[in-house]
Every structure is written in C-alpha cells, then in structure tokens.
C-alpha cells in the first residue's frame, strides 16, 4: 500500500514531461544533423570518385569526426540538451558517447582509464548493432534462397 501511495504522490508532484516539445526538438535536431550529412555526401559525390552508394562510408566517418571535435570542445552537450534523442540517435551520438567516456576517465590513466572505459557506452551499440545486422543478414539470405526477394 505504501509503495502505491508513493508512486501516486510522485506522479502528482513531478513536472509533466513536455512530450510534444521534446518530439519537435528531436525532429529538428536530428533532421538538421542528417541535412548536414547529406551535404557532406553530396560533397564527396561531386568532388571525389564516390557514387551515392559508396559515399556513405566517408560521410559517416566525417560526421563522427565532427561530433568528436564538438564533444571535445563541449558543444555537443548543448546540442544534446536541446535535441535529446535527435542528437543521440544519428551516428554523431555514437561518436559523442565514445569521446565523452574517454574524456571522463582520462584521469585514471591511458590504458585502464581511457582504453578500458572508452566503449563503456558505445560497446552496447556495437554489440547489438553487429548482432542485429547478423540476424537481418540471416533473414535476407533465407529470403533470397527461397526466391522471395533478390539481392
């Protein structure tokens, strides 16, 4: 009973989450990041020998590099505070997670501190990313084998 009461009380007292506002902010921030990425992709397509398909790799690398710089200068924090999921979900959020963990544990030394903790946050992204890619590839392979879709 006590627990239920507490939950009720907490619900009443805590400020309401402005869902719509958060969603709009995330949409704008994420959209802006992707727009910048699109421009970088266009830059690689126009000035280098990349096609639409192959330009994605250097684009991703550039976006991660930019977000790492911004994290180091303390600017990505502000973007994340404004954009929420809009700044965390694109690939730039991944770069931010790696570098911010590295900065945080720098005082513990380079090997056990930075090296050991760098992928503390991003490690799960890599693990589940690789795993889900494996599952998707498995499903697609089966579908191609049975002739439902083509590569």
């Amino acid at each position, binding site marked *: 009973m006590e627990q239920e009461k507490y939950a009720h009380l907490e619900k009443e007292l805590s400020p309401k989450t402005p869902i719509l506002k958060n969603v709009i902010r995330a949409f704008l921030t994420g959209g802006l990041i992707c727009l910048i990425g699109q421009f970088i992709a266009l830059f690689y*397509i*126009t000035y280098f*020998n*990349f*096609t*639409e*398909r*192959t*330009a994605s*790799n250097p684009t991703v690398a550039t976006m991660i590099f930019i977000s790492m710089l911004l994290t180091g200068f303390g600017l990505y924090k502000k973007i994340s505070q404004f954009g929420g999921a809009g700044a965390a979900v694109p690939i730039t959020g991944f770069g931010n997670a790696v570098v911010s963990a590295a900065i945080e544990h720098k005082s513990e030394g380079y090997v056990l501190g930075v090296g050991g903790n760098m992928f503390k946050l991003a490690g799960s992204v890599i693990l589940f990313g690789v795993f889900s890619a494996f599952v998707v590839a498995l499903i697609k392979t089966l579908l191609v084998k049975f002739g439902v879709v083509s590569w």
Partner: protein
Amino acid sequence: MKKLGMLFILLFLLTGCSEKGTRIENTTTFNDDQLEKTLDHNEHVKLAIALLHEKDLIAGIRVNTFSRFQKKKIANELKEKLEKEYPELNITVSADSKVLLETQKLINKGKEGEYHKKIEKIKSIEKEQT
C-alpha cells in the same frame, strides 16, 4: 509580412522539385529517337542524360522522389528495354546521381577525344561496391 515570406519560401521549395527533361548527346550514327522516346515515356524518370559514343550508351537518370526506393529496379528495367532496342551497344543505365553528374559534365565539356576514357571510368566507379 512574415506570412508573405513563408509563402515565398514554400513556393521556392516546391518549385525546386519540378525539373524534367531528357538530354541526349549522340556522336554515333545510331538513331536516338527510340532512346528519347523510351526515356521520356517512363513515368518514374524525371531527368535523364544520355550519351552515345562509339559502342557505348551511358544514361544517368533521376527518378521521382517517391519512386526512389525502387530506383535500382527502374534502372534495370530501362536497361533491359534499351538492350532490346539497341542490341549492338554496350548499355549502362544508372539511377545513381554520380553517373548523372559525370555524364552531364562530360557533355558540357564537349571534348570528344575524352569521351571513351571517361565513359570507362564512370562505368568502373558505378560497379564499385564499397
């Protein structure tokens, strides 16, 4: 005043998407009427730039926004169709904007001596996987 500005921005954004056309550069003796017809009559294609040179036909297409998910399929279908119409030619059709861009650049430069070399280059870039 603010509303008027918004209206102009909206109009500007909307008109940005309406380019349509077909451009063909032919340095061979092949008849390109059929090619133009095929490219023009495809409902998914909004911009096509084609270059015929020696034994090569290279065409870069841009598909409508909502057909973009099937652009590979559309390009393949066009290629098959063109292969039936021009069985003597090596045909490359691609919905990749790089091919469109490079073909356009090549035609605008207009140096026929470079055509063969550049066409081979575009083809090799287009085939690259990663």
